[in-house]
């Protein structure tokens, strides 16, 4: 009995140690799993802003990181679904990570979505990823004119705005959880200059 407890304890300590090492190796500045509310969104983004105070990155790079963070966090807050039912979950929950290396900042979010949304998300991201910077600007102007706010007060401009501002493609991955839902991972990269 005692042995089992010790073993669980060791595994846990081992996990923490490995977790710490992984975070360090991946240069993760912030990792969070849980409800993503407006308060969390503001806290994380202002934390990042403060971290930038002694950064050598240009103001434009810093602003872009901040911008992408807010868009990604608000996306999870507004669009995450419940794992079992596939119904909207408010506030949404998910994972949020930001990491940096010599050349880029990477903002990653992961959240549950209903399977019927997969094609819509894929089509949208693929479409923006395929456009060159000029085409993106034109498409953006067209979309902002035509966009109508959704019930959740989103303008549907998050993905295109990230592609436009970062100049990089959005990477995504869908990991099927069950018949109703999948885990949607979105990775956005901001170049450092």
């Amino acid at each position: 009995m005692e042995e089992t407890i010790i073993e669980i304890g060791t595994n846990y300590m081992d996990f923490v140690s490995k977790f710490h090492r992984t975070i360090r190796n991946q240069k993760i500045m912030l990792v969070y799993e849980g409800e993503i509310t407006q308060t969390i969104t503001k806290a994380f983004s202002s934390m990042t802003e403060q971290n930038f105070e002694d950064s050598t990155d240009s103001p434009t790079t810093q602003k872009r990181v901040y911008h992408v963070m807010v868009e990604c966090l608000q996306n999870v807050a507004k669009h995450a679904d419940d794992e079992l039912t596939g119904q909207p979950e408010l506030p949404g929950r998910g994972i949020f990570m930001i990491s940096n290396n010599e050349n880029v900042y990477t903002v990653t979010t992961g959240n549950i979505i209903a399977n019927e949304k997969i094609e819509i998300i894929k089509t949208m991201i693929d479409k923006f990823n395929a456009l060159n910077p000029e085409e993106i600007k034109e498409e953006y102007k067209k979309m902002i004119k035509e966009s109508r706010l959704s019930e959740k007060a989103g303008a549907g401009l998050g993905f295109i705005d990230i592609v436009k501002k970062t100049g990089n493609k959005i990477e995504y991955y869908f990991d099927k959880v069950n018949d109703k839902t999948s885990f949607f991972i979105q990775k956005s990269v901001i170049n450092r200059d």
Partner: protein
Amino acid sequence: MELINIEATDETPKVILNSETHVFEFSGKSLPEDVTQFYNPLLEWLETYKSSPGNSTKAIFKMDYFNTASSKLILDILMLLEEIHEETSGVSVEWHFKEDDEDMEEAGEEYSDIVDVPFKSISF
């Protein structure tokens, strides 16, 4: 008309809508959870102003940051200003951006492409 004077918060901008001076100002950050709740009263105010606008109206934007949902509402404001300009030919927009803020400068350029209002970009 009633003066609108809203102080800035960490998620909404400072807004002044003054029908006596005919000067409107928007400055700060905009990333509220519900953009409509914040912007609808402003749009309603501008709709009313449109029915008896001044000969010359100046709108000053000095935004530090706004999210995409807010960018849509800012366009709605600019489109109302465009309608007022059609009536009065007296609307001017000043778009202020920090000298080193490329994206805010570009946002101004995009808006000026979309709406037909005299538009001046000013760096600070």
